[in-house]
């Protein structure tokens, strides 16, 4: 029995070492970015990213530039916040509405429609982006063109449908007996019990909207409407202070999501892994 315990102990230490090494490797790129945010942008151009800690060359200059400099970073930041909030709100509302329809009713054509949900789940945006862009370019470059096509979001609908399967039918029956309409039941009885599901999907959709790049790259033309990802990418050409701002701005763009992640980790994981178990 004693040797068994010893063996377990050794295995557990080996595993901790393995996972620590993996964790270090995974955090390393973000850490190099963090260190670089204290170095002059010129160093970055000259040497690339590395872990050198030359204290005499490190300063808070980039942060001063970020917070007080004359640039568009905070406009991009604000645009990203606006776009993210709008996207989350619209997507959650519309997808919950549709997901409820799929979850509680039996109607003609439901299976067919649901197979379409599954098919759309699997089509990458890249496949339809050109004709969709052509179709939408007449709308001008506004946020509606970014949000509207994806409000009824297949994977979010799928998640809400799974979640609502667990809602007892008795709630619906009680509502009907009280004389509530089908929509009244959804708005007054169902939405309040969906809070955990909303939290998980808000975080997942919010993260995707914050980091979204491909579709805004096609749709948005005027620089006043640039989001963070679009704006940061304009800095990769090394003129003036660009690289200083690029590095400190890139690092700072992760911060809001990171704070949300620390606070709501459970919901991040839940939203992320929702599709994987049931397949």
């Amino acid at each position: 029995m004693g040797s068994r315990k010893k063996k377990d102990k050794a295995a557990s230490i080996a595993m901790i070492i393995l996972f620590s090494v993996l964790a270090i490797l995974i955090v390393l790129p973000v850490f190099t970015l963090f260190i670089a945010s204290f170095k002059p942008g010129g160093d970055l151009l000259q040497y690339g990213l590395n872990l050198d800690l030359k204290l005499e060359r490190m300063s808070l200059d980039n942060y001063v530039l970020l917070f007080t400099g004359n640039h568009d970073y905070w406009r991009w930041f604000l645009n990203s916040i606006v776009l993210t909030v709008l996207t989350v709100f619209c997507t959650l509302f519309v997808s919950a509405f549709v997901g409820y329809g799929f979850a509680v009713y039996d109607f003609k054509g439901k299976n067919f429609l649901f197979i379409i949900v599954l098919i759309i789940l699997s089509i990458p945006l890249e496949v339809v982006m050109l004709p969709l862009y052509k179709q939408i370019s007449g709308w001008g470059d506004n946020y509606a063109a970014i949000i509207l096509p994806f409000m009824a979001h297949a994977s979010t609908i799928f998640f809400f449908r799974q979640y609502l399967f667990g809602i007892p039918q008795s709630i619906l029956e009680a509502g009907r007996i009280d004389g509530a309409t089908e929509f009244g039941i959804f708005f007054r009885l169902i939405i309040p019990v969906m809070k955990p599901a909303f939290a998980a999907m808000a975080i997942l959709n919010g993260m995707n909207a914050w980091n979204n790049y491909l579709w805004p790259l096609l749709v948005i033309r005027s620089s006043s409407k640039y989001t963070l990802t679009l704006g940061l990418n304009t800095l990769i050409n090394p003129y003036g202070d660009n690289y200083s701002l690029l590095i400190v701005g890139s690092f700072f763009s992760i911060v809001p999501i990171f704070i949300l992640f620390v606070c709501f980790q459970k919901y991040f994981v839940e939203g992320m892994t929702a599709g994987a178990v049931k397949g």
Partner: protein
Amino acid sequence: MLKRFFYSKKIAPYIFVLPFIITVLLFWAAPISNGILLSFQDILKDQWVGTQNYERLLSDKIFLKAIFNSVKYMLGTLILLIPFPLLFASLLNSKLMKKPGLFKSAYFIPALTSVVVAGTVFRLMFGEAAGSLANQVIGFFGFSPIKWLKNAETSYFILLLVACWRWTGVNILYFLAGLQSIPSELYEAAAIDGASKWQQFTKISIPLVKPTSVYVLTISIYAGLSMFLESYMLFKGNNSPNNIGLTIVGYLYRQGIEKRAMGYACAVGCILLLIIMAVNLIQLKLTGAFGKEEK
């Protein structure tokens, strides 16, 4: 009267799913059929050209290279991003692992970053200068600096590394969710019967996380075949030396957006759609999703 009609139990379900139906018609069915029609036209000359775009594509060496690159990338991600995360997840799930939460948080961090930040960081870590992190590491072992993003093998390695960095943690989470749905009694019973940990892994874990594996496999195939932005960010745009970083979607972007040859680009899109639908059909067949829906 009208109000009653909309509120009735017969009509209400259709109103609930209506936003989805409209979305499908406007933003999926219309662009897809439009794309198919466009693929038989030459937009610059504004005329129908029959199957000419497709014929041209099949003999277009650069397009074939793009397909080769995308498929090679996809296969690489499958080999690296399924077995290892599964193994790591089952180790993390074992009783010997005391505080898996801390590691799980760390592994999730790359998923929080945008492809713009990830691509920029990796481009600069693998910079050409002797001072870049990658060249410092190989310098430590006595090798001279490499122009990482200028030749095919090293850029393939970096693309895979970016993919592993971003998705290893997420896939571990997927597999953990799958593993945690397996009743622990199964492992206990197997342990009493004298099964080793490895046997438990191969005989219980692997077969029972199959739904998760199929899910991860299919999303990896789709993501691998439609990869574009990672390469776009690493090479600072859509042009890489000798097209070593060109993918199917990269070619679609080049033809459709940069050269404005919409018809030709849509033909590329249709071929990608065909490949994806074929994979989709195989997956739905394997998981029996059609049968499930009919019940």
